[in-house]
């Protein structure tokens, strides 16, 4: 059992930068947990505070029930993989992998055997005698992983370990890493600023913004029901359409750009006539129609982008509002054509003051 519990964890850097403000978070045992957020939001700081490389200025960190807030990094039983892999250039791959064991005073023979075994497991068997400089980026990444694995830590911390790989290698490494984590069952916290990576790999995702958690949930939850417009615009490879609207008389519909769209079920009870809201719907959840439809946004096609198996169409609505719609192949409209975008009712969301209307308590971190 190695769950991680953060209790009002805070970090203020000496210069006065407040990088973490009173975070509460629990990472479950064996979970693959992703920390996601824009640059400078404090992801690395959180990870480094977990590792003990930065001292918390408030709150506590518990690993497996043990308070480690004041423990030095070496006593926390944690392994970390850095963005630059931090392989020692003067040691061979085997020596690198065995290094933490050497520090832990494991005997020479046992150490070498363990290093060889781990290297073998990660497909580095034939590269053991090479130096890091003689490895490709992907091999270096696996060597760094092997070093983290070899000493069987309670927790893995990864700080953007895939960002030095090219696009194809990154996809491969993603699958590989996820599988490996599943097999090892070690609690893992993974930092990334790539939302696709977080959604693809993690069991749960935490979205951070300026030192605070904005939402914690499974990738599906975070993708389907972003708790705020910030999360909504951050998650998803094509950003969610966020359209200003107003509740019409009776509270049964939202007027967006002169059209009336139905109010999503969960939100109805929380709204009253005249409320100013933001109507959120992902391009994937808008159905394209060439014929006039009620309860749909309408406009003219201004841009068509090819996504491969589909097209991303930008519809310029009558009020000048731009709406993006994913249109399946073969139905691709011509630029300048008129079109209607019908929201999928169960996927549309309403935001008031930037927060999701009708969110359950679980969706909004305290």
């Amino acid at each position: 059992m190695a769950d991680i519990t953060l209790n009002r964890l805070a970090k203020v850097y000496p210069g006065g930068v407040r990088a973490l403000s009173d975070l509460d978070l629990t990472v479950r045992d064996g979970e693959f947990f992703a920390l996601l957020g824009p640059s400078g939001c404090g992801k690395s700081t959180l990870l480094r505070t977990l590792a003990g490389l930065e001292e918390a200025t408030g709150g506590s960190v518990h690993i497996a029930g043990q308070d480690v807030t004041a423990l030095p990094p070496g006593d926390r039983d944690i392994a970390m993989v850095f963005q630059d892999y931090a392989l020692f250039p003067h040691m061979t791959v085997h020596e690198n992998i065995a290094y933490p064991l050497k520090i832990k005073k494991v005997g020479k023979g046992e150490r070498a055997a363990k290093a060889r075994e781990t290297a073998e497991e990660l497909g580095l068997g034939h590269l053991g005698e090479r130096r890091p400089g003689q490895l490709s980026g992907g091999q270096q990444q696996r060597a760094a992983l092997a070093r983290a694995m070899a000493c069987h830590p309670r927790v893995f911390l990864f700080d953007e370990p895939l960002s030095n790989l090219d696009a194809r290698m990154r996809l491969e490494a993603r699958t590989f890493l996820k599988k490996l984590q599943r097999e090892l069952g070690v609690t893992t916290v993974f930092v990334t600023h790539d939302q696709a990576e977080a959604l693809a790999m993690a069991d749960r995702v935490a979205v951070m913004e300026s030192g605070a958690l904005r939402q914690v949930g499974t990738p599906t939850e975070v993708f389907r029901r972003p708790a705020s417009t910030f999360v909504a615009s951050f998650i998803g490879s094509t950003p969610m359409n966020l359209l200003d609207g107003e509740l019409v008389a009776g509270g049964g519909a939202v007027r967006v750009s002169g059209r009336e769209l139905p109010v999503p079920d969960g939100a109805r009870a929380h709204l009253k006539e005249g409320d100013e809201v933001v109507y959120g719907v992902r391009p994937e959840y808008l159905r394209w129609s060439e014929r006039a439809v009620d309860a749909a946004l309408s406009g003219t096609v201004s841009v068509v982008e090819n996504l491969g198996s589909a097209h991303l169409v930008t519809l310029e609505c009558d009020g000048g509002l731009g709406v993006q719609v994913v249109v399946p192949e073969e139905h691709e409209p011509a630029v300048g054509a008129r079109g209607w975008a019908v929201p999928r009712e169960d996927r549309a969301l309403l935001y008031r003051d930037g927060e999701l209307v009708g969110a359950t308590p679980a969706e909004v971190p305290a």
Partner: protein
Amino acid sequence: MAATTSSAETATRTGEQSPDGHGGEPERDAAGLGRRRAAAFVAPALVLIALFLVLPAVWTLYLGATDYRLTGIPAIDPAFVGLDNVTKALGDDDFLHSLWLTLLFVLGSAVIGQAGLGFALAWWMRERTGWLKTTLEALVMLAWILPSSVVAFLWIAFLDRDGGTLNTLLHTPGAAWLLDHPMLSIIVYNIWRGSAFSMMLYSAALGNVPASHLETARLAGASGWQQLRDVVFPRIRGHVLTNLLLISLWTFNDFTPFLITAGGPNGATETLPVHIYKTALGSGELGYGAALSFLMLLINLVVAVVYLRLLGQKNKARRSGKRKTAARGSGGPTDQDAAPAAPHAEAPAAKEETA
């Protein structure tokens, strides 16, 4: 081994040149000047070097083989004595004693003192900011940039038997430091004087050690000493050797102790430069002094060659690091390009390191 290195070098050179289309030219210099024009450019500098460095050295060599003196008959008509001066020196207790003192001086004040204190300062200042660091840095630098004559006077005043600053501080009135501990005095003086250079060089070197490497070691549980041994020193070995080479040679040839102790008391601080000065100009034995100078030059050369050889091994081992960054910068194809070259260039270096 030479063959493999050169092949690797040609590979990089052609790689650099091909984009400009200069690859086919017979003379392969970086600027494309051609041999004649290149020679014309360096000629003035070569003339100056010949005039002011090579010629005096050769002249010293010649003088060293004569019995030339400041006064007397040999001053007018020096006789050629061959290697007599050198054989005399090797049997001369004064010379051997001063050689021993010089060795003590170099080891104590440069190799151990300046390098050690400089590294300690650099390591301590690594992640610190604020007034303490700034002040300390300024003080260390000040000791380095003050003129020798000023510094010598300061130290004489500092160590003075009656009313010297040190005696006042330690409440030891009348302790004659320069008489009772002459070598120790000039060693401590030279540590104080020269640590700034080592500090700056090591500061720059430590800046090259990636924080993530040290942190990886810390996460593994490495102590401060283990971090130094396993992460820092292998990384800055080249800087350490360069630093040791420079400060050894500088200290070896340093004449400033003379300004403090004048070689005394009774020759107790007569390091080689001081000994030569006293022999050649004090006693007027110019020929013998020149021979001693030549011996000193030889020792300098030997020291330099030893360090440079160590440095050479280090550079070979480091190529792997260079290639690593190159490979990471671009994508897959470059990796494959670099792969065949790597094992050839790397294998010998790896062997040397383990040996």
